[in-house]
């Protein structure tokens, strides 16, 4: 069976997915850093190595994402929206609305039963509600970003944030900490503020169930719960939500 490679060069993280025909065989995730070309090469090498194949075994390579133009060995470079849509359709065929929380960008994509885009909206003007909030929160609380979700679930009284701006939220959080707010309540408050901003955005594409949450933000259980609360519905979260677009890219040739 032929091997396919999908690469998603995001603003924060670069991901590669290796599929054999339609089956996911291996993947790799690494920070994008300042050199997208190098980051892409790195994740490809890792993914190939994990499955013990060489670049010569690859039948077709598709690159997508913010830095896709830097991946010169890709045969095709579709938009990350369409890769996202295909990736999620492959994983959860019933999903009609995808909420993607990336490192810098937040977007909502409405898709049809064939994984085609019906409508989408992306917040590219303002970092409000993006993964940047999580990075900032982790930094000021001196915890790992991976711990935020668990911490958030311990909260009994989430702090009310008055701002949707990532920069101002940081100073607000610092003030609340100095006033004695608990870390758990700060994190839960940040999750709530993010969820509210994200759903305001997503509402503009017309929310339709089922829902999936993707991107690095979907790895944060506190954020997922906060978004579900705003949606008043449950959502699908993949085992590895960060590789959705890379998976869609790997499968791109298959499902036009």
């Amino acid at each position: 069976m032929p091997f396919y490679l999908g690469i998603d060069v995001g603003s924060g993280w670069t991901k590669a997915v290796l599929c054999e025909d339609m089956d996911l065989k291996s993947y790799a995730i690494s920070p994008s850093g300042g050199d997208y070309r190098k980051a892409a090469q790195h994740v490809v090498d890792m993914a190939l190595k994990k499955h013990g194949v060489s670049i010569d075994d690859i039948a077709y390579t598709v690159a997508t994402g913010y830095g896709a133009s830097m991946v010169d060995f890709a045969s095709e470079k579709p938009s990350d929206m369409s890769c996202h849509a295909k990736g999620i359709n492959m994983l959860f065929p019933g999903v009609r609305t995808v909420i993607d929380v990336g490192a810098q960008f937040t977007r909502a994509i409405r898709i049809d039963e064939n994984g085609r885009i019906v409508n989408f909206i992306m917040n590219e003007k303002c970092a409000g509600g993006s993964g940047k909030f999580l990075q900032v929160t982790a930094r000021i609380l001196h915890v790992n970003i991976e711990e935020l979700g668990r911490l958030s679930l311990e909260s009994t009284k989430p702090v009310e944030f008055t701002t949707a701006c990532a920069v101002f939220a940081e100073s607000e959080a610092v003030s609340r900490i100095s006033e004695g707010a608990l870390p758990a309540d700060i994190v839960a408050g940040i999750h709530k503020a993010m969820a509210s901003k994200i759903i305001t955005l997503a509402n503009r594409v017309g929310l339709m169930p089922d829902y999936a949450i993707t991107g690095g933000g979907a790895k944060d259980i506190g954020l997922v719960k906060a978004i579900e609360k705003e949606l008043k519905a449950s959502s699908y979260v993949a085992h590895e939500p960060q590789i959705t677009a890379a998976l869609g890219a790997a499968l791109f040739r298959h499902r036009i």
Partner: protein
Amino acid sequence: MPKFFAGVDIGSTMTKVVIFSGRIEATIIGPTGPEHRKLANKVMEEALKKANILFEDLSYIIATGYGRINVPFADRQITEITCHAKGLHSLLPTVKTIVDIGGQDSKGIKIKDGKVVSFVMNDKCAAGTGRFIEIMADTLGVPLNDMGSLSLTSDRPASISSTCTVFAEHEITNQLAGGETLANLVAGIHMSVATRVSSMVKKLTIEPDVAVTGGGAKNIGLVKALEAKLGYPVLLPPEPLITGALGAAVLAKEIFEKYEREGQTPIRSPFGLQEAKIFS
């Protein structure tokens, strides 16, 4: 002995106190920090020391600014827009439009005879505020106080396409890596703030004279960029940070004297020089 009045302006970044008797007796400017509710009494103590008077010598005290609720010993709170207009008018009476660039907001205020006619304000988004410049200075490793002079050496301001502070920070890092000079980047940063502020202030009809106040007025590069974008030369008060606190002190004097004229005694705060117990 003259009567003394005080204005306390607790801004998001800096806390300012002015002691006033008809003329400025003392001014204090210090960082607000995260624990601003514990700060007002300390800066007031410093200001009193500088003016060489006692707390009991103050006839009336007005607090203003974003943290004005956390000044328990103030006799009254008045919004910073009103205080700003008052303070600026007492310094530069010909000014009709004020552009205030604070640490965490920016405002445009139209004034007539020291009173506010209309205003616009951004405190929702860090773009177009002092915070934007602060973050970029930090990213570039340029001391905040050097940003102004550095930008004047630019031959071609860098174009920064992102409005959002978070995205602009990324963009600047990339441009720096791509070989753009510090001076051009700093000039581009000032241009970005000036563009955003001027498009907001233009919602009011700008009438000269125009003054720039707040921390932003201390940055000559930003002032020049604002002049270019607003299309007017701008006046700067001698100490642009204290306009709000001065206005509060001037209003304290006016309010006190109005009570006196009417044969009344103003109600004073029951609290002495202590830190705030409650906070908002």
